[in-house]
């Protein structure tokens, strides 16, 4: 049966960021994704969220550290001022370490809950810290869509960019599950992914994409050789986006939006002859 054509929009990827312990940053990740270099043997320690003032920095849990690292690097990559960007923070499982802590503490000593850890437990903690650290008063959102969190986060960033006619920051991240909760939420390691998307080309855009929401179930898998870099992490589904950017080959990548819906992104890289960006 022929589907009616879904509304398609054009957007540009103006900046990216990626962090996982063995590919701690886009500069090291891109050649690894292309198969040109090996990932680091030793995992890098969690990044220090330099954008935060000392008071917030010392309180920042792992989710905030990883999210703010990729948020900052994505803005740098795009040459964008963080204070001017609305943002979308996407996290599948929330702060799994704090969820374990809260549930554990509530069993025996609920009146001894740490106020700092509680206020870090909200799903929008990373987003809140980002705006506090940068002074950005543009709106943010924080969302989850289970295994389709990256797709929904990307969609929301693209929609906001298109709607507002301005660049939007996407930050996607998940950390390792701890304690009994790990028997239900199977996430390992740390992954942070960032992108700045815009309805208009930037000074040095990395890719042009044609995107639409379509019915379907077949999501793009990461390349087999790259999958283990983010294996077991709840945000592993983000990898094909970064492979497309690293490889700079025209291709279509699909992310889940729900069990029956996909975000389809056609990448192309115009004007490559002289090595310049689209």
């Amino acid at each position, binding site marked *: 049966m022929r589907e009616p054509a879904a509304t398609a929009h054009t957007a540009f990827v103006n900046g990216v960021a990626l962090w996982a312990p063995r590919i701690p940053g886009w500069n090291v990740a891109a050649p690894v994704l292309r198969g040109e270099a090996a990932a680091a043997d030793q995992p890098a320690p969690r990044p220090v969220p330099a954008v935060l003032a*000392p*008071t917030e*920095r*010392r*309180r920042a849990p792992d989710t905030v550290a990883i999210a703010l690292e990729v948020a900052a690097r994505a803005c740098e990559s795009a040459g964008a001022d963080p204070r001017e960007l609305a943002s979308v923070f996407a996290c599948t499982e929330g702060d799994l370490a704090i969820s374990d802590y809260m549930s554990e503490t509530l069993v025996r000593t609920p009146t*001894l*809950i*740490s*106020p*700092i850890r509680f206020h870090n437990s909200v799903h929008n903690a990373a987003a809140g810290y980002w705006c506090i650290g940068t002074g950005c008063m543009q709106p943010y959102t924080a969302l989850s869509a289970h295994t389709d969190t990256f797709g929904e986060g990307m969609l929301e960033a693209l929609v906001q960019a298109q709607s507002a006619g301005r660049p939007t920051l996407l930050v996607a991240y998940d950390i390792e599950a701890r304690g009994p909760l790990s028997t239900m939420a199977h996430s390992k390691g740390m992954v942070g992914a960032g992108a700045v998307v815009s309805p208009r080309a930037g000074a040095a855009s990395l890719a042009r994409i044609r995107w639409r929401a379509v019915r379907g179930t077949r999501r793009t898998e990461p390349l087999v050789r790259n999958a283990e870099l983010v294996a077991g992490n709840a945000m592993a589904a983000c990898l094909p986006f970064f492979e497309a950017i690293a490889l700079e080959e025209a291709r279509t990548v699909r992310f889940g939006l729900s069990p029956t819906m996909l975000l389809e992104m056609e990448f192309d890289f115009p004007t490559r002859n002289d090595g310049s960006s689209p």
Partner: protein
Amino acid sequence: MAQTQTPQQQELAELIVSALNLEGVDPGGIDPDAPLFGSGLGLDSIDALELALEISKRYGVQLKAEDEDNKRIFASLRALTDHILERRTI
């Protein structure tokens, strides 16, 4: 020059540094009479709550936000230590 700390002040200084994750702060270097809040260590109201929690767990002394004496109690390491020594139950 900062006064040296009594053993009780040092113990509390160590608790403050660890409870609030004060990276790079040497507990032994905290002047017993310097302000804890605002300037000095730069602690804020949520730090006060966190500290109150750790103090209650360690020493059994309850410190509530509504306590009018809080400004005095939290004024310095010395003041806080003295307050706890008077009231500790653990």
